[in-house]
C-alpha cells in the first residue's frame, strides 16, 4: 500500500494512492455534493455535480471528485468561485430536464438559483445510471439499461416490457436520487404483504434468539440467486458477513444427549371452515404475535390487510386441538396465549375482543387471575365451538366484515358475530420430522408423535435409550415455565450421568459358555454393539458383558446352546410357555 499526501481545502491528509477523491474528502469531513455516486457501485462521473478544482504541479484542472484518483501532492479546492459557478451551470442544465425534482431544487437553492436560465423540464430521471449500475453490478439481475442516444436517451427494461428477470428487490428505487423509480407493492405483492411484511433477507430470527445474531435467508438473499449484491458485507464495518460460509457437518463425542426439538404449530388451513388463506384478515396467533411485537416489522401495530386498524377482533380457541378431525389432545398453551393476545390487541388497537372457547383452561400460577383481569377489561368470552367464518353478510351490520357463526352454549342460541379480524389460536403438534429424529435416537413416539418418556412418573425425562433425555414440547405440549422446569430436569439427569463417570448396566446381558461353543461364529456379526468377538487362540466366541445391551439375538441364533441370556434363558422361556398353557 502506497500512501500519498493530499490537501483538501487546506486540510492535509494521507490516503492510499489512487483512492477516488470523493472518499478522501469524506474522510476529512469535506462535503462534496453527488448525484450519480453511490459507494456500492463503481464511480461513473456522469452528473458532474461533484466537480472540484485540483492543483497539481502548477496545473489547475476541474475534475469530477467521484472518479478522480488522488496522487501525491495534489491540492484540492471544493468551494472556489470557479467550482461553484460550474456546479450552478450543471444544476441549471439538470433543471432544464427535471425541473420539479425536490432534491435538485434544494441544491439549486444552495447555489443561488431562483429561476433556471434554461427553463424547467418535466422529466424526473437525470440519467445518472445508478439504477442501471446497481441492477447489473450489485443485484446481478441486469434488467435495467439505457436506450437510444442523445436527447432521447432513457432508462428502461428491454422492449419496455415488465421483465421476468426482475426480482423486485427494490434496489433501483433505493438508490435513485430523484425518486424517479417506485416499486409497485400492490401489483406484485412480492415484497411481503401488509401488515406483516416486508422482511429483509438478513434478519435476527426472534428477539430471544440464541445466539442473538442475524441470519441470512438463503432462499431470499440476492447474492445466492445472482452471485451479486453482497451489500450487507460492504456496509458491515466489523466485516462479520461471509457469504462463502458453507454448511459443516461436525461429529462431536458426547456423554449424553438432551433432545429438545420442540413442536410445530398446526397448519390453520387444516381447519378450512375458518377461512385461513381464503380471507385476508384471518390470521394465525403467531402472525398476530409477530404484529404486536414492538420490534417486529409492524412496530407493534395491529393492522388489517388494507392498513387500517380493526374495530372488532375474534379469537378462536382450540384450532387443531380437541378436535377429532385434527388432534384430540388439548394443546395446553392456547388458552393463555389467546388471553395474552386479547389483552395486547385490545391495548394496541382499542378493538372489541371476542374469545370463542370450549373450556377455559387457565391452570397455573397467576393464570386464573389473568383470566379474571381480562373479564374485567371487557373482553367478551363466548363458550362454544365456532362453526364457520365467512364473509357472507346477512344484515347491513355485517357488510364487509368477517362473520363468526357460533353456538353460544351458555346463552343457548346460535350467534353471528361480525368482526374485522379473526385470530386462530392454532394448537401444537409434533414436528414433521419427529419420526426421523426418533429413529436417530432410537426413541419411541406416542401415537400423536410426541417422544415417549421411559415412565410418565418415575422417569419423565428419560427415554428408552440410555443417555438420551427429552425436554420441552418434543415430549408433549407444554408452556414455557413447564418447559424450563423439564429442561432443568433433563440437564440435571444428563449431568448426573456424566458426573458419575460410570453407567449402570442392565442385568439381562447374554453370556457364552466356552465349553459349549464350537466357534461357529454365527453370533459374532449379529451383535449390534460388537460385544461378541471371536477368540482366535481358543477358537471360541467370547462376549463382553459390559458392551452387551441384552437383546438376545445371539442367544436365539446360537445353535449350540452356548449363548444364553440372564433372566431370559431358554429354560426360563420354555417354562413360561408351559406355564401360560397350563389348563
Amino acid at each position, binding site marked *: 500500500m502506497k500512501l500519498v499526501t493530499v490537501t483538501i481545502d487546506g486540510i492535509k491528509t494521507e490516503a492510499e494512492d489512487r483512492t477516488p477523491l470523493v472518499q478522501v474528502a469524506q474522510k476529512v469531513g469535506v462535503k462534496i455534493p453527488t448525484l450519480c455516486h453511490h459507494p456500492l457501485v463503481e464511480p461513473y462521473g456522469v452528473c458532474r455535480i461533484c466537480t472540484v478544482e485540483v492543483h497539481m504541479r502548477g496545473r489547475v484542472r476541474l475534475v469530477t471528485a467521484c472518479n478522480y484518483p488522488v496522487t501525491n501532492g495534489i491540492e484540492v479546492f471544493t468551494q472556489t468561485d470557479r467550482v461553484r459557478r460550474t456546479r450552478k451551470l450543471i444544476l441549471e442544465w439538470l433543471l432544464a430536464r427535471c425541473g420539479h425534482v425536490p432534491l435538485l431544487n434544494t441544491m439549486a437553492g444552495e447555489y443561488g438559483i431562483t429561476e433556471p436560465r434554461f427553463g424547467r423540464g418535466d422529466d424526473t430521471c437525470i440519467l445518472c445510471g445508478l439504477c442501471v449500475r446497481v441492477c447489473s453490478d450489485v443485484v446481478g439481475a441486469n434488467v435495467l439499461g439505457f436506450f437510444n442516444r442523445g436527447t432521447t436517451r432513457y432508462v428502461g427494461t428491454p422492449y419496455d416490457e415488465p421483465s421476468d428477470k426482475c426480482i423486485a428487490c427494490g434496489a433501483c428505487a433505493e438508490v435513485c436520487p430523484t425518486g424517479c423509480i417506485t416499486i409497485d407493492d400492490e401489483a406484485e405483492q412480492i415484497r411481503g404483504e401488509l401488515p406483516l411484511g416486508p422482511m429483509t433477507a438478513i434478519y435476527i430470527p426472534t428477539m430471544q434468539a440464541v445466539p442473538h445474531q442475524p441470519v441470512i435467508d438463503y432462499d431470499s438473499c440476492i447474492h445466492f440467486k445472482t452471485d451479486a449484491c453482497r451489500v450487507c458485507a460492504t456496509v458491515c464495518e466489523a466485516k462479520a458477513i461471509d457469504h462463502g460460509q458453507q454448511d459443516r457437518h461436525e461429529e462431536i463425542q458426547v456423554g449424553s444427549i438432551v433432545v429438545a426439538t420442540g413442536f410445530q404449530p398446526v397448519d390453520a388451513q387444516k381447519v378450512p371452515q375458518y377461512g385461513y388463506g381464503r380471507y385476508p384478515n384471518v390470521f394465525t396467533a403467531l402472525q398476530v404475535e409477530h404484529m404486536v411485537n414492538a420490534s417486529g416489522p409492524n412496530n407493534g401495530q395491529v393492522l388489517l390487510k388494507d392498513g387500517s386498524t380493526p374495530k372488532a377482533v375474534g379469537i378462536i380457541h382450540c384450532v387443531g386441538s380437541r378436535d377429532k378431525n385434527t388432534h384430540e389432545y388439548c394443546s395446553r398453551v392456547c388458552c393463555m396465549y389467546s388471553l395474552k393476545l386479547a389483552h395486547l390487541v385490545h391495548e394496541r388497537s382499542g378493538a372489541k375482543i371476542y374469545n370463542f372457547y370450549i373450556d377455559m383452561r387457565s391452570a397455573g400460577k397467576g393464570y386464573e387471575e389473568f383470566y379474571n383481569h381480562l373479564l374485567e377489561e371487557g373482553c367478551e368470552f363466548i363458550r362454544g365451538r365456532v362453526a364457520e367464518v365467512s364473509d357472507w353478510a346477512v344484515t347491513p351490520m355485517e357488510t364487509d366484515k368477517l362473520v363468526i357463526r357460533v353456538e353460544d352454549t351458555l346463552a343457548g342460541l346460535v350467534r353471528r358475530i361480525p368482526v374485522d379480524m379473526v385470530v386462530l389460536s392454532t394448537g401444537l403438534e409434533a414436528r414433521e420430522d419427529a419420526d426421523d429424529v426418533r429413529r436417530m435416537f432410537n426413541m419411541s413416539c406416542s401415537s400423536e408423535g410426541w417422544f415417549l418418556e421411559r415412565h410418565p412418573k418415575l422417569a419423565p425425562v428419560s427415554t428408552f435409550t440410555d443417555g438420551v433425555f427429552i425436554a420441552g414440547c418434543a415430549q408433549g405440549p407444554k408452556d414455557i415455565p413447564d418447559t424450563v422446569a423439564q429442561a432443568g430436569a433433563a440437564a440435571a439427569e444428563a449431568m448426573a450421568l456424566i458426573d458419575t463417570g460410570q453407567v449402570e448396566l442392565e442385568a439381562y446381558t447374554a453370556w457364552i459358555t466356552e465349553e*459349549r461353543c464350537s466357534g*461357529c461364529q454365527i453370533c459374532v456379526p449379529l451383535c449390534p454393539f460388537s460385544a461378541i468377538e*471371536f477368540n482366535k487362540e481358543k477358537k471360541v466366541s467370547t462376549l463382553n458383558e459390559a458392551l452387551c445391551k441384552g437383546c438376545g439375538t445371539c442367544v436365539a441364533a446360537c445353535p*449350540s446352546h452356548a449363548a444364553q441370556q440372564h433372566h431370559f434363558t431358554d429354560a426360563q422361556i420354555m417354562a413360561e410357555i408351559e406355564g401360560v398353557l397350563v389348563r
Partner: protein
Amino acid sequence: MADKPKVAFYWCASCGGCEEAVVDLEEQILKVVDAVDIVLWPVAMDFKRSEIEAMPDGSIAVAFINGGVRMSEQEEWVHMLRRKSQMVVAFGACAHLGGIPGLANLNNRQQVFDTVYQNVPSQDNQAHTVPGEHSRMDGHTLELPRFWDEVKALHQVIDVDYYLPGCAPPPALIWAAIEAILTGTLPPKGAVLSPNKACCDDCPRKDSKPDKIELTEIKRPSTHIADPELCFMAQGFICMGPATRSGCGNPCIEGNMPCRGCMGPMDDVFDQGAKFLSAFASILAPKTEAEIDKLLDQIPDPVGTFYRFSLPTSLLHRRRTGATV
C-alpha cells in the same frame, strides 16, 4: 462263557448301515467278542425270539438297538429287550433321532402306502393290494406286523440309557462307548456318547470361516461344486455343522460334502432343525420380505434339509393333517 456280560444287537427301521459300523471296528471287534457274549445279532447270526423270551429279565448287560420304531413288531421287540437288558443303547441316528426313515412323518400310513404300493411309476398294482395285518390265503391266516402312522425314535417307545449318534456311528465312538461300558466309566444316564460341541469345533475348514457371512445365494451340492478348502456356509451351502454334535471325525467335510446333521443336536437343544434354522436365517443378507422369500425359494425342501435325521424327535414330531393346509 457264563461270566462274560451278555450283549444283544437289534435292528428296527433302519438300513443296516449301523450293523456295518460294528463290523467297521475291524480287528477291535475280536476284543469285543473276547470280552462279551453276544446273545442276539440278527444280521450276523441266527437267534430265535423264543430264546430271548426265555431269558430272565435283566440278564442281558447291554442291548444296542438301531433303527427307529415304525411297526408293532419292532415295538414288541424293543419292549422285550428293555425288560431283558440292564442297559439299552440307542445305536445310530435312527434310534437316536428317528433318522432318515423318520422323514416319513411328513406323511401318514395311508399316504406312504399310496406312494409305495400304488403311485410309484414302477408299481403295477391294479388290485390295490396293500399290506394288511391279517390276510387269508388258501385257508391260512397270514399275520403281518401293523404299520404305524408315525416313525418314533427309540426313547419315544422305551427308556433309553445312552445314545450313540451318527449315521452310522463312527467306529471310534463305538469303541469308546464299549470301553466305557466295560470299564464302568460311563457318564450319567441319558447322555449322548459324543462330545457336546458342534462340528465346527474340529472342522478342518474352521480357519477359513470369515468373520461375517451374509448369504445372497443358497447353493446345493447337486448344482454347485464346493471349494474343497473353504467353509461351506461361507460359500452359501447349507451345512448343518454349527447345529450338529461333533465326534464323527468329519468324513463328509473330507469328502467335500456339507454336514447333514446326522449326529443330532447338542445337549439342551430342543429341536435341531429349528435351532439350525434360527442360526442359518440369521446370516441371510436380504432385509425385505420379498427379497428374503426369493432367497428362501432356493431351499426346495426346508424340513427335509433341516430335519433330515431328526424329524420324529423334533418338537412337533410329525406333520399334522387336517381339513385345511
